[in-house]
């Protein structure tokens, strides 16, 4: 099924077209959502919303960009919406997490006294990296994730973000400098502690 046939099929909502759409794009959509939200269950929910949005708004697809680019754009927007909603709930969420961690910590102390430091170290590093990426300005974050995780070419990122190639290059360059700066602060503290 070529792109035009797929679009035509989606407009009249044929079963084959819908099946082909999900089958072809599910991996990319879920993974991209996951790179943004860092939680597989949330990424799956977002992906379902993305496919529903594609089906309901396929008539608005202008064909100025490829279907692939359009789907990526919807996925990025949906993921960012999810993060914004999550941020709004952040206060309550933090309280919940704090209480959960306290309980889990208490339980772990009782049940698993011999937790290895390596696992904690790994989790801590992961959290630091996630936070550092999450704290980047939105455009830098999108460009960095699409480049580093999705391994898209700068041209594809420029199409998805509706920006020029040079803007994307500059965004990724600045994202790397910012990340380097944030991570060096953390790693140098860590290195001093190790000395």
């Amino acid at each position, binding site marked *: 099924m070529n792109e035009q046939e797929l679009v035509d099929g989606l407009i009249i*909502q044929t079963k084959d077209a*819908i*099946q082909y759409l*999900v*089958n072809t794009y*599910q*991996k990319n959509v*879920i*993974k991209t959502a*996951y*790179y943004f939200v*860092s939680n*597989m269950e949330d990424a*799956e929910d977002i*992906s*379902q919303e993305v*496919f*529903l949005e594609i*089906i309901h708004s396929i008539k608005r697809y202008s064909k100025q960009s490829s279907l692939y680019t359009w789907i990526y754009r919807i996925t990025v927007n949906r993921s960012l919406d999810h993060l914004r909603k999550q941020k709004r709930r952040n206060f309550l969420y933090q309280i919940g997490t704090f209480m959960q961690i306290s309980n889990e910590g208490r339980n772990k102390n009782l049940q698993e006294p011999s937790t290895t430091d390596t696992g904690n170290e*790994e989790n801590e*590093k*992961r959290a630091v*990296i996630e936070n550092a990426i999450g704290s980047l300005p939105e455009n830098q974050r999108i460009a960095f994730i699409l480049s*580093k*995780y999705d391994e898209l070419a700068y041209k594809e990122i420029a199409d998805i973000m509706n920006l020029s190639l040079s803007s994307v290059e500059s965004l990724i360059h600045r994202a*790397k*400098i910012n*990340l*380097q700066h944030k*991570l*060096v602060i953390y*790693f*140098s503290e*860590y*290195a*001093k502690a*190790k*000395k």
Partner: protein
Amino acid sequence: MQKPKSNTDCSFVRNNLFNHQEKLLSGNDLKEFEDHLLHCRECSLIVSDFQSVASLIDHKKSAEVNDFFQTRTLQRIASDLDRVRNTPGRGLQRILQPVMISFLFLAAVLIGLSIGKRFDSKYSLNPTHVNNIEAMKSDLFIKDFMDEDQTAFNNH
């Protein structure tokens, strides 16, 4: 024997972590970078920790998609499309619902105003409408009590 100290500044290493990781450093810069690591333990630890960024990114990339995702998604799409198809006049409902709510609100306001107006005209304290006071007395059943009071007052 102690190794000769490299002249490269720590900041050169710390500003080129991504370039080093992505193998974008040229021959001379790469040599300076690596020479510095030989004598600077702190930078060497930072570089080795920074390598974990790449491994964590790779780890995240390797996340597997749930095998049942496609089935669940197709089911959700089918039920969503059924819901849309089985709700006739959904577009009309979207328009009629706010219209009806506005109409009911307006009707409630008008009924309230008309009751208020009737009450106002019936019990107005306008001195020319003495009958209204009589009407109020009779409505409140206080006429007899007032007469009793008046008798009691006259007796005193």
